[in-house]
């Protein structure tokens, strides 16, 4: 019965693994729901900002704002790559890293120097491993990213852009479309792509004036783009983790089925053999 005992041990261990993956699946589900709510809650603000900027924006004003400067040639760009701090979420981090590498390769192919900024332990670990210089990194952003987190990430870059030290800023993040779909995406946050101009429908009283308001709001717009990327990253991470843990639980169940069958077969074989031995022994005694 040596084989049987060995199988029993394996069954126990797979059962334990399944218990863990099932718990992680449930935890990820509830965290994902909360993160999803935050994605939804972030929408009115973004909508309000976009509305106002597009109603104030006019192409004549564009030249006055450093953040709207569209450089003819991008000499130096910053890439902010968002990744999670933790793994066990399938190919989530790997896909983000792949997207980040793709955009870095594209920019460098065009002769642009790329400054890499990283959020998340997983991305930092990878880029350190391949020996790439990481300009700044943040691994302390929690499951509940705040607007301040976004400001800390992008304010220095906004200033550098305004001074003309860098010509573009990209953010790589998973665009959370639904629980099942969050494709890694690289979005350009600077220079600000002016929203389609909704013709100024109304004669607003503007205080102080359109230029000043626009000048104040553009940095908010940039920060908000980064904030939304952070929030969507959290939601997408838990969605990916939930899927990964659900698959792991299902696989463990399949494995248990096969192991159980093998175990029972081995047990039956032993019993059959024992009976055969007893019958054989009895027959020998009678004979």
């Amino acid at each position: 019965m040596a084989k049987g005992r060995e199988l029993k041990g394996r069954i126990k261990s797979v059962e334990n693994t399944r218990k863990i993956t099932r718990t992680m699946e449930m935890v990820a589900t509830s965290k994902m729901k909360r993160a999803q709510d935050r994605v939804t809650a972030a929408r009115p603000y973004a909508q309000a900002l976009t509305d106002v900027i597009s109603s104030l924006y006019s192409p004549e004003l564009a030249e006055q704002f450093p953040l709207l400067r569209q450089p003819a040639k991008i000499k130096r760009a910053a890439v902010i790559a968002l990744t999670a701090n933790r793994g066990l979420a399938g190919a989530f981090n790997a896909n983000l890293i792949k997207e980040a590498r793709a955009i870095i390769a594209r920019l460098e192919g065009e002769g642009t120097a790329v400054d890499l900024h990283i959020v998340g332990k997983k991305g930092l670990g990878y880029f350190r491993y391949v020996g790439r210089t990481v300009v700044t990194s943040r691994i302390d952003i929690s499951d509940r990213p705040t607007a301040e987190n976004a400001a800390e990430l992008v304010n220095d870059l906004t200033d550098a852009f305004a001074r003309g030290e860098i010509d573009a800023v990209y953010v790589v993040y998973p665009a959370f479309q639904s629980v099942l779909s969050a494709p890694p995406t690289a979005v350009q946050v600077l220079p600000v792509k002016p929203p389609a101009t909704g013709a100024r429908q109304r004669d607003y009283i503007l205080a102080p004036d359109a230029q000043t308001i626009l000048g104040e709001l553009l940095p908010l717009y940039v920060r908000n783009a980064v904030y939304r990327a952070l929030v969507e990253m959290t939601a997408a991470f838990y969605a990916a983790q939930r899927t990964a843990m659900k698959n792991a639980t299902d696989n463990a169940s399949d494995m248990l089925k096969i192991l159980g069958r093998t175990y029972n077969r081995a047990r039956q074989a032993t019993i059959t053999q024992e009976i055969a031995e007893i019958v054989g022994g009895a027959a020998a005694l009678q004979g």
Partner: protein
Amino acid sequence: MLKVSVISPEAVLYEGDTDSVVAPAFDGEVGILTGHAPMMTLLGKGVLRLGGGSQRFSVEGGFLQVVDNTVRVVTEKASAA
């Protein structure tokens, strides 16, 4: 009546009807009653009061927009006070 919403990046903090809004604009307080002309103004730092102080929020930066008796206060830093 004025329809008021106070919006921060994280959430919509308040949404409801009130009869007056006093907001800390960049150059001093601004009061809004029903029938105000369309207006857009930057906000400074201070306390936003709705309905004569029944609801208070401390805000910093952002802007306030009035259109058709609808007031939107959009600010990065806002908290109930």
